[in-house]
C-alpha cells in the first residue's frame, strides 16, 4: 500500500479559495481576495510539486480512494484520485500556469466590478480542472469536465450586462453539453461492458478482450468519447463556441480557453489511449477531425481583426494539431504540444490582454499598431510566443509540432502536408497579428501604457517557458504511459515545416509591413473567398438556420401551440365541452313540458316492456 499523499488537498485549496471569496469576498478588501485566490492556487501548485517529488518516478499510478460517491447494486462509483505520469504533467501545467494567470489577473482585473466574483470563479475553475485531472475514473473526470464547463460559462459571461458575453457563455455551455452527451453515452457503454468506470479496471478488461469481441464496442466507446472531446476541445464540428468565448476577460481566455480546459479533451483521449489503441477506426477519425479542425480554423484565423479572435482560432487550430497527434498514435507528442501550447498560447493571450489593457479595452487590431515602443515588455514577451507558435527552432512550439508532424507523416503522408500548410498559415496569422498590433503607426485614440508588474511578471515567466519549454522531454516522460513513438526523425520533413513557418512570417511581413494596401486589394480580388473566411464559413449561421431556429420554432409552434395547447388540451377541453354540450342538449329535452315528460315516461315504459319481454327469450 502506498503512502497517502493527501491528493485531495490539491483541488481543495482552490475550492477553499472559492468558498472564501464567494461568501466573504464581497465585503473584504482586495488584499484578502488576492490572498485567498492566488494563495490557494499557489499552495495547490506547491502541493503538486511536493507530491510529485515524493512520488518520484511514478512507475505505477498512485491511487487514493476516499469514499463511495454512489452505488446501485453492483455498480458503484468512488471518489478516487490518481496520479501517474500523464497526470503529473497536467497537474504541473494546470497549477503552474494557473498560478501565473491568477497573478496576472490581479493586475488585469484590478478595476473591474465583481473582482471577488471573478476570482471565486477562477478558483472554482481550478478546483474542477484539478478534479478532472486527478480523477481515477471516468465519472470523477466527468465532474471536472462539467465543472470546468460551468466555470467557463460563468467566466465567459462575466460581463453579464452585455448580451454578447452571456450569449457566448450560454453557447459554450450548450455546445459542450452536446459533447458531454457523447461522453455520457460512452460511459454508459463502458459500464455496460466493463461494469465499472474505474480507469485501471476498464483499461485492463479492455485489453483482455479478444479483438473480435472488442472491436465494435470499443470503437463505439471511443467514437463517443471523441464526441465529448470535440466539444470540450473545440474540434470540428463543435468548435463554434470557442471563438465566441473570447467575450470573457482575457486571463480567462488564457487560462481556460487556451492553456488548460480546452486541452481536457486531449487529456481525456490520451488517458483513454489504451482504448483508442484497440479501435483503429476511432483513431483515424480522431486524426481526421483534428486535421480538419487545424486547417479550417487556421484559414478562419487569417482574416480576423479582433486580436483575441485570431488567437482563439489559433487555439482551435493548435488543438486540431494535438488531435492529429493523438489520432496518429503519437499521444505523447499530442500531450507535448498541450504543454508547449499552454506556454505560448497563454503567453499570447496574456500579452494580448496586456495590449488590450494598454489600449483601454480595444480589441480590434485595426485600431492598434505601432505599440512596439509604447509597451515594449509586452512586445518582447509576445515575440517569444510568436516564434514559438510559428515553429521556429529551437523554441518550444517547434519541438512539439514537429513531433506531431513527423508522426503524422509516418501514419499518412497527406496528413503531414496538410499539417505543413496549416503551420504556414499559423505563422502567417500570428505574424499578421503581431505586425498589425506592434508595427506601423498607432491607429487608435487611447494612450497606451505598459502594464503593471503583476501582469508583466507572468509574461516574462511564460516567455521563458515558451522559448525553452521544448527542452523538457515530455514525450520521454510519458512514453511508458502512452506508448513509444515510432516516427523516424527525417530531417527533410523538419526543414519543410520550418520553411513553411518562415514563409508564413515572410508573407505576413510583406503584406502588413512592406505594402499595407495589399490585404484589402486581395480581399477585393477574392471577394467570395474572403467573405467566406471572414465570416467563418457561415458555420454559426448554418447552425442557426439548421438547428437552433427549427428547434425553437418547432417547439413553439408545433409542440407547444400545436401539440400541447392545440391537440392534447384540445382533447381534454374538448371532452369537457363535449360533456357540457351533451349536457346542454339534454337540458333541452327537459323543456318543462309535462306532456313531453310523460311522453318519455311512456316511451321508457315501451322500452322496458319490449326489453323485458324479449330478454331471456320471448315465450
Amino acid at each position, binding site marked *: 500500500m502506498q503512502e497517502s499523499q493527501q491528493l485531495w488537498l490539491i483541488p481543495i485549496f482552490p475550492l477553499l479559495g472559492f468558498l472564501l471569496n464567494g461568501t466573504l469576498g464581497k465585503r473584504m478588501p482586495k488584499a484578502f481576495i488576492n490572498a485567498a485566490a492566488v494563495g490557494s492556487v499557489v499552495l495547490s501548485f506547491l502541493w503538486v510539486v511536493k507530491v510529485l517529488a515524493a512520488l518520484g518516478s511514478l512507475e505505477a499510478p498512485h491511487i487514493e480512494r476516499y469514499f463511495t460517491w454512489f452505488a446501485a447494486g453492483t455498480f458503484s462509483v468512488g471518489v478516487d484520485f490518481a496520479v501517474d505520469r500523464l497526470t503529473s504533467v497536467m497537474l504541473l501545467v494546470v497549477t503552474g500556469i494557473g498560478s501565473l494567470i491568477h497573478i496576472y489577473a490581479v493586475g488585469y482585473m484590478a478595476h473591474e466590478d465583481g473582482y471577488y466574483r471573478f476570482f471565486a470563479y477562477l478558483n472554482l475553475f481550478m478546483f474542477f480542472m484539478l478534479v478532472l485531472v486527478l480523477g481515477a475514473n471516468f465519472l470523477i473526470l466527468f465532474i471536472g469536465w462539467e465543472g470546468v464547463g460551468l466555470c467557463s460559462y460563468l467566466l465567459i459571461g462575466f460581463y453579464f450586462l452585455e448580451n454578447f458575453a452571456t450569449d457566448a457563455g450560454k453557447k459554450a455551455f450548450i455546445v459542450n453539453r452536446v459533447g458531454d452527451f457523447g461522453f455520457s453515452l460512452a460511459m454508459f457503454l463502458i459500464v455496460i461492458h466493463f461494469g465499472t468506470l474505474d480507469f485501471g479496471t476498464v483499461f485492463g478488461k479492455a485489453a483482455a478482450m479478444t479483438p473480435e469481441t472488442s472491436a465494435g464496442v470499443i470503437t463505439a466507446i471511443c467514437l463517443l468519447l471523441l464526441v465529448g472531446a470535440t466539444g470540450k476541445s473545440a474540434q470540428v464540428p463543435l468548435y463554434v463556441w470557442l471563438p465566441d468565448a473570447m467575450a470573457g476577460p482575457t486571463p480567462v481566455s488564457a487560462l481556460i480557453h487556451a492553456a488548460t480546459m480546452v486541452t481536457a479533451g486531449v487529456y481525456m483521449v490520451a488517458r483513454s489511449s489504451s482504448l483508442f489503441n484497440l479501435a483503429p477506426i476511432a483513431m483515424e477519425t480522431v486524426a481526421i477531425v483534428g486535421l480538419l479542425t487545424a486547417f479550417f480554423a487556421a484559414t478562419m484565423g487569417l482574416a480576423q481583426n479582433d486580436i483575441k479572435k485570431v488567437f482563439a482560432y489559433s487555439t482551435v487550430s493548435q488543438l486540431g494539431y494535438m488531435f492529429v497527434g493523438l489520432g496518429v498514435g503519437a499521444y505523447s507528442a499530442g500531450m507535448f504540444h498541450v504543454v508547449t501550447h499552454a506556454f505560448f498560447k497563454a503567453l499570447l493571450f496574456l500579452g494580448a490582454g496586456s495590449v488590450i489593457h494598454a489600449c483601454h479595452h480595444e480589441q480590434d487590431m485595426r485600431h492598434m499598431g505601432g505599440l512596439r515602443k509604447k509597451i515594449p515588455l509586452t512586445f518582447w514577451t509576445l515575440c517569444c510566443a510568436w516564434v514559438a507558435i510559428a515553429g521556429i527552432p529551437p523554441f518550444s512550439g517547434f519541438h512539439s509540432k514537429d513531433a506531431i508532424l513527423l508522426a503524422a507523416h509516418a501514419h499518412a503522408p497527406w496528413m503531414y502536408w496538410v499539417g505543413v500548410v496549416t503551420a504556414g498559415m499559423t505563422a502567417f496569422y500570428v505574424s499578421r497579428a503581431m505586425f498589425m498590433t506592434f508595427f506601423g503607426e498607432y491607429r487608435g485614440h487611447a494612450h497606451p501604457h505598459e502594464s503593471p508588474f503583476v501582469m508583466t511578471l507572468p509574461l516574462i515567466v511564460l516567455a521563458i517557458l515558451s522559448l525553452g519549454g521544448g527542452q523538457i522531454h515530455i514525450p520521454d516522460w510519458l512514453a511508458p504511459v502512452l506508448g513509444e513513438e515510432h516516427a523516424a526523425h527525417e530531417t527533410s520533413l523538419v526543414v519543410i515545416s520550418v520553411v513553411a513557418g518562415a514563409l508564413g512570417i515572410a508573407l505576413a511581413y510583406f503584406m502588413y509591413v512592406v505594402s499595407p494596401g495589399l490585404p484589402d486589394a486581395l480581399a477585393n480580388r477574392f471577394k467570395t473567398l474572403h467573405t467566406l473566411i471572414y465570416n467563418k464559413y457561415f458555420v454559426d449561421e448554418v447552425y442557426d438556420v439548421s438547428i437552433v431556429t427549427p428547434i425553437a420554432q418547432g417547439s413553439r409552434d408545433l409542440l407547444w401551440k400545436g401539440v400541447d395547447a392545440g391537440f392534447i388540451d384540445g382533447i381534454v377541453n374538448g371532452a369537457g365541452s363535449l360533456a357540457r354540450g351533451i349536457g346542454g342538449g339534454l337540458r333541452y329535452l327537459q323543456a318543462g313540458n309535462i306532456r313531453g315528460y310523460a311522453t318519455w315516461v311512456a316511451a321508457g*315504459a315501451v322500452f322496458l316492456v319490449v*326489453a323485458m319481454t324479449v330478454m*331471456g327469450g320471448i315465450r
Partner: protein
Amino acid sequence: MPTNFWPSAAELHRFMPEIILTLFGTAIMVLEPLTRAKKMLAWLAALALALAIGFALFAMNFPGTAFSGMIVADGFATFFRVLVCGVGLLTILLSLDYLDRENHQQGEYYALLLFSIVGQCVMASANELIMVFIGIEISSIASYVLAGYLRDDPRNNESAIKYFLLGSFATAFLLYGIAWIYGLTGTTNLSEIRAVLGNANFAQSPALVGLAAALLSVGFAFKVSAAPFQMWAPDVYQGAPAPVTAFMTAGPKAAAFAVFLRVFVTAFEPVSDRWVPLVGVVALATMVVGNLAALRQSNIKRLLAYSSIANAGYVLVAVAAHSEVGTQAVMFYLASYAIMNVGAFAVVSHFARKGERFVAIDDFSGLAERQPAMAALLAIFLLSLIGVPLTAGFFGKFYIFRAALDSHLVWLTVAGLLNSAIAAFYYLRILVVMYMHAPGEAAERLEPLSPTLNATIWAAALATLAFGVFPGPLLDLAGRWVLGR
C-alpha cells in the same frame, strides 16, 4: 282461511311505527286550529318520529309478518323505517326556520310530513303489492301537497302539478303491472309470487311476467327518478320549497329504492335474468343523464336535483349488482346520501332567504369569506357528494362499485367511476364560487344560522365525516339487516 283476524300484540308491534306516526299526525291535525304555538306542533312531530324510530327498532324483537302477511318487520324494513324517520326529523328541523320565514308555519305541514313518512314506512315494510301501492300513494300524495305547499308561489304550484300528474301517470303503470302479476300468479304477496314464479310447473308465459315486471318497474323507476323517467325530478325539486326538496330527495327516494329492491329481489328473483341487465342499462343512462345535464345548471336546487338523479344512477348500479353486497351498498349509500344531501339543502335553504331569492350558484360567491363555517359545512357535503375519501359519500360509492365489480360488472363500474369524475366538475363549481370568487351581494347580507338549523347542519356534517372515517357500524347494520334473497 285463518279465522282470527284480530292482530296479535306482536303484529301490532310490527306496525307500531306507522301507528304512532298516524296518531301523532292526526293529533297535530286536530291541535292545529287550537294552538298558536305552531312550533310546538313541529316538536310534537319530531317526537313522533323519534318514537317511531324507537318502535321501529323495538319491532326488531318481533321479526315476522303481520296482518295476513301484508307487511313484514325485518331488518331491511327497520333500516329504511329508521332512515326515513331520520330524514323526516332532519326535515322538520330545517323547516322550522323556513316556514317562519315564509309565514307558513302551520301544523298541517308537519302532519303531512308525518303522513308521508307513514307511507314510506309502509313502503319499507310492505310485503304485498297492494301495500306497496297504498304506501306509495300515501307517500306521494302527501308529497304532492308538500311540493305545492306555498300555494301562492307559482314555482310551488308548478312543482306540485308536475309531480302530481306525472306521478299519477307512472302509478297507473305500476298498478297495471300489479294487475298483471296478480293475473299471472293469482297472488300479490311477494313471497307467494316468488314461490309461484319459481315453481317448475308455473304455466304462464315468462314474457307476460316480463311485461308485468316492466310495468311495475316503470312505477318504481319513476319514483327513484331513473332515466328516462327522471324528467320530473329537476322541475319538481327546483320548484318545491327547499326543505321539502331535501326531504323528497332523501326520504321517498330511499323508500322507493327499498320497495324496488324488495319487490324485485323477493318476488322477481326467479326471473332475474329479465330485469337485472336492464337495471344496469338504466343505471348507466341515469348516471350519464344526471351528470351531464347537471354540468350546465345555474340554479343550485336544480343542480342538486340533477345530482340526485345521478346518485340514483349509482344506487341502481348496486341494484344491478344483484347481490347481498349490492343491497348492502344500496342501504349504505342511501343513508349516507340522505345525510349529506339534507345537509346541503339545509345550507341552501338558509342561504336562499325569503321567497328563495338566492338560489343561483353565483349567489354563493365568496360565501367562504363571509361565513367560513357555513361554507366549510357545505363544502363537506359537496366533497362527500363528489366522493372524496373520509366522507360518507366516498364509502357509499366505494361499496357500490365494489358490489358491481363483485358481480363482474366491469363496464358499469368503469362507466360509473368516470361518471363520478364528471360529477366532480359541477360540485367543484359550487366550491369554486364559494371559495374562489369575491363575495357577492347574497353572501354579504346573510344572517347567521339559527341554533336549530346550525345544530342540524353540524350534526349532518359530523355524521358525514363520521361515516366517512368509520363506516363500519353503519355498514354492519346494513349487512345484518340486508334483504335476504
